[in-house]
């Protein structure tokens, strides 16, 4: 398979803020590791998990779900027609998990001990299980990603070897993802009194898994749109329309499970009490309903701008859900009034910026996207 020539013209008006974020990010990194967490974060004893856990880790893992969704569809359910969007999904997932790990290094008080769960076991800890799943799944992604490189380099033997283990490898990746995507929700099962009733539920693991499936589809759609714009390449639009159907279905399942749960628990009245939590919940629901509505109207679903916005609102909805569980929902009981500091926000932006730069650099030099002819089927 030949790589198409891709040119990236960075918009000049973007250059200055990007440079600013990069410089500020480097400076703050030095400060963070020299003086400790207190110097750069708004964290406190009352609110020990902040933006870096809520956004960098809990959102980050969800947004990288496209990898396991698409490998499952193409390899396990043999829907080979989705192959054109498979590689960018694997790349995003791989980079996503690297970003999550780097974000974790910033957040951990003793990042040099990050390997400890390998040898010091506590199977009763959700965090221990997540750590192992993320480590193993990152290895799976690294292997899947190396197969892309091997193919580009035409290392025939390596490629054959990868083909032989593709199905078990993908199956392992899907199982590991199912486990840790849901387990990120299980992290909060132990705080029934600290997490607001609009989010605390014994179904947290199921909710997290279902929304991870939805956001996996949404992210693949979104990144295809964005990369086609930035890389000036064709768009696999009819594939994306089909993925939009899966997204629609996944969102409905997620919302149905979530709303019946809230209804049965009798906590829906909190949504209307005008509190911060109520408003945050309405925003979260509003984003999901908007996305479902857009996808329900055929003319919008089949239009580029409509599908784009449907996917974008779905991504924002899942992000709102994750931030609500890990930050907003934990606020009132802590009485801490936590709001992320500028430094926390800048570091998060810094990591995302680095991720985007690496993604487009990889897209430029590696056979991530299919050659123009194959990709251009929409025209």
């Amino acid at each position, binding site marked *: 398979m030949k790589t198409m020539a891709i040119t990236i013209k960075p918009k000049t008006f973007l250059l200055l803020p990007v440079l600013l974020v990069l410089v500020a990010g480097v400076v703050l990194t030095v400060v963070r590791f020299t003086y*400790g*967490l207190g110097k750069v974060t708004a964290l406190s004893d009352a609110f020990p*998990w902040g933006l870096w856990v809520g956004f960098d880790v809990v959102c980050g893992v969800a947004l990288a779900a496209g990898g396991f969704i698409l490998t499952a569809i193409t*390899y396990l359910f*043999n829907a080979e027609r989705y192959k054109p969007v498979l590689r960018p999904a694997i790349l995003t997932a791989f980079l996503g998990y690297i970003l999550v790990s780097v974000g974790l290094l910033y957040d951990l*008080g003793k*990042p040099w001990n990050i390997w400890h769960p390998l040898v010091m076991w506590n199977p009763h*800890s959700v965090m221990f299980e997540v750590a192992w799943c993320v480590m193993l799944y990152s290895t799976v992604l690294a292997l899947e990603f190396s197969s892309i490189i091997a193919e580009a380099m035409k290392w025939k033997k390596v490629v054959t070897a990868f083909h032989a283990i593709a199905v078990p490898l993908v199956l392992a990746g899907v199982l590991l993802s*199912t486990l840790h995507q849901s387990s990120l929700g299980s992290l909060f099962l132990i705080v029934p009194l600290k997490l607001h009733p609009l989010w605390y539920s014994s179904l947290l693991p199921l909710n997290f898994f279902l929304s991870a499936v939805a956001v996996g589809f949404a992210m693949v759609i979104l990144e295809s749109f964005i990369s086609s714009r930035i890389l000036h390449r064709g768009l696999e639009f009819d594939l994306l329309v089909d993925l939009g159907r899966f997204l629609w279905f996944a969102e409905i399942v997620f919302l149905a499970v979530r709303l019946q749960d809230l209804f049965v628990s009798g906590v829906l009245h909190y949504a209307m009490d005008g509190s911060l939590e109520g408003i945050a919940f309405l925003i979260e629901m509003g984003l999901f309903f908007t996305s479902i509505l857009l996808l329900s109207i055929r003319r919008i679903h089949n239009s580029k701008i409509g599908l784009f916005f449907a996917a974008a609102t779905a991504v924002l909805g899942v992000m709102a859900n994750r931030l609500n569980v890990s930050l907003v929902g934990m606020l009132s009981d802590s009485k801490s009034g936590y709001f992320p500091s500028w430094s926390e926000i800048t570091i998060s932006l810094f990591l995302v910026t680095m991720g985007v730069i690496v993604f487009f650099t990889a897209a430029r030099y590696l056979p991530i996207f299919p050659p123009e002819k194959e990709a251009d089927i929409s025209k």
Partner: protein
Amino acid sequence: MATYGLLLDFNTCIGCKACMRSCKEVNNLSGPLGQELSAENYTVVNTYKDLNYRKMCMHCLTPSCTSVCPVGALKKSELGPVTYDGNKCIGCRYCMVACPFSIPRYEWNNPRPVVRKCIMCISRIEQGKEPACAWVCPMGATRFGERDRLLDIARARLTRHPDKYVNHIYGEKEAGGTSVLMISSIAFADLGFRSTLPQEPLPDLTWTVLRKIPNIVFTAGIVVGGIWWVINRRMELDRENNGNNHKA
């Protein structure tokens, strides 16, 4: 082996803060005596309506912190104390999030931070001594002993002076029970203690899900693998049929 605990009787406490001072000495904690638990104050004595009350790690019988710690840095000793090993700790602070009593504190301004909380002077207990706070208390308001014995003492006091105590031994059943027990003349909720804790240990909430993981992996593996096999087999058959048709 006996499991030990502490009985704190707020009615007897005179607020001299000798426990706070001896705690600092034994645990090498610097800084002034605080009003709030902190990395330098494992215990604090405060006053509410003439009642002196003390806050410290409750040393749960089934602690959330030991259950959530991914590396087992926090451990429940058979002697009673919940101990902490800073060398194992990775600094994820899940213990702080999970603790139903919000006890663990962190060294936010240390580039090599550790979690800070009362460890019930475990090394003193191992040497056959009482924890510093109980040993130093001039009024016996903090009493060290076997938890069962302490419970009997607490019950006896509540029965003998129903007018002086609220009928509640805080720690007897909270979060599955704690090694530290408290009795008081003012309701614990008014003193800022969480009063709505379930009587079951909180780690059960996680374990009911976690223990199903092997089943989930096995079942999902069989189902998804099965789907792959069926689809793949059909496609192979299709290809064979097409091939045969071609020859014919």
